[in-house]
Structures are given as structure tokens and as C-alpha cells.
């Protein structure tokens, strides 16, 4: 089911640009439409910025999914930062603990087909999104 898993660091803002290009390349290779490519790249950009700004840096794992005729991409963003005390609050549009617009998590969720988040205070954060073709 899984193949070609790639891990990229997210430690500086330039890494976000590199990661966007990597996700775009894979979305094209998986046969995503232009709109679907744009959605997953934008979702990835939002989550990578969270990893950098709130998680203090981390990494993303890019997995290509293929089961029969269905192809997709799964992205897992991991950091060892302070974690999110109230996930429901963090998912709400407009909520931000920093200087952002507070659209990152909720927006990324809307742009994905599957979304899961695992975080506890002091225990880092892991966000996984999947988009199918």
C-alpha cells in the first residue's frame, strides 16, 4: 500500500518552499488535477508553517498511496514542540495563539479528504492529511 515515503526537514522558511515543490511534483505524478494539486500543496504549506512557527520545527513524511485505481498522497507533519492544549479550539477558524490568521489547521482540514491530529501539552504534535485523486 505504501511506497516512496520521503522525509523532508521543516526547520527554516526556505524548507517550506522546498516541501511545497516536492508535494506538487508527487501530486502531478499521482495524476492529480490542477485544482487537487493546488489544494494539497496549500494545505501542506499551512501545516508546515504551523510546524515551524508553533512546533519549533520538525519534519514532514510524504507517502504515495495507491490501492487499485485509487491514488493519493498522505502527509504527516511532526514536531516535538509544546503541543496543543485544546485541539478543538485550535481547529476553529480565526483562533491563533501566535500572529497568524488562525486558518492553518481548519483550512488544511477543509482542503483534505482525511485529517487527523494527535497532540498533547509537552508531547509534540502530529498532523496527518490525505488527499485522494
Amino acid at each position, binding site marked *: 500500500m505504501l511506497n516512496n515515503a520521503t522525509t523532508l526537514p521543516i526547520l527554516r522558511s526556505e524548507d517550506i518552499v522546498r516541501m511545497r515543490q516536492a508535494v506538487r511534483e508527487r501530486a502531478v505524478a499521482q495524476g492529480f488535477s490542477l*485544482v487537487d494539486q*493546488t489544494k494539497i*500543496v*496549500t494545505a501542506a504549506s499551512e501545516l508546515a*508553517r504551523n510546524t515551524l512557527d508553533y512546533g519549533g520545527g520538525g519534519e514532514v513524511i510524504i507517502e504515495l498511496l495507491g490501492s487499485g485505481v485509487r491514488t493519493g498522497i498522505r502527509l504527516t507533519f511532526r514536531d516535538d514542540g509544546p503541543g496543543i492544549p485544546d485541539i478543538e479550539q485550535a481547529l476553529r477558524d480565526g483562533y491563533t495563539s501566535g500572529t497568524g490568521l488562525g486558518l*492553518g489547521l481548519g483550512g488544511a482540514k*477543509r*482542503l483534505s479528504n482525511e485529517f487527523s491530529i494527535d497532540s498533547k501539552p509537552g508531547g509534540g504534535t502530529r498532523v496527518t492529511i490525505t488527499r485522494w485523486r
Partner: protein
Amino acid sequence: MDRIPILKMGKFLLVTIQVDMHDQLALHLQDDLTTRIASERSHGVLIDISSLDMVDSFIGRMIANIAGMARVLDAETVVVGMRPSVAITLVELGLPLPGVHTALNVEKGMALLEQRVQERL
């Protein structure tokens, strides 16, 4: 440090964003543009984003900031050339781009700027 060029076209300034912007580049653009609006006494800014294949909330916020700063410096901002796939994604992301005027292309954007400046006279 690379920077995004700002071209002067009569009363207006034209910025074409052609690269995948990292944060520092975006912040430099805000600074450079506000400085130029003041020094050139420009009445309008045209931002061409036709080369951008995605706009996330960071870039969206930068565009909204530029429009806000331009407004208090007595200049209008028009964003032109947004790709349809970017527009669809922006709406789903939930980014409203408040106070930012848009036009389909540079020509229509220029016309819109002219019209808005005329209205204010």
C-alpha cells in the same frame, strides 16, 4: 538577498510576483513597496500574481497587509491574474482577502485603478 522588483508605470507601481516566495522575501516586498508608494507619491499598486501556483494564508495575509498599508498611504491596490485553481483553493481555505480589489489581468487592473483614482478626485 534577492528582492522582487517594483516597476513604476505613471501614477502606479507594478509588482509581478514570479517566484515561490519565502517569508523574508515577502516581508522585504512589504517594506519596499510602502517606501516606494511614499517616495513616488503613487496612487495605486498593481500586484500580478499570475505566476503563483498557490496562495496560502501567509501570502494572502501579505497581500492584505500591502493593501492596508497602501490605503493609509492614500493608494489603491488591485491584485490581478489569480489562477482559477488558486481562487477555488483560497475560498475553501477560508481566506477572504478583505479590502483587496481584484481584476482578471493587468489591462483590466490598470483600468480599475484609473477608475478608482478618478472617483476619488
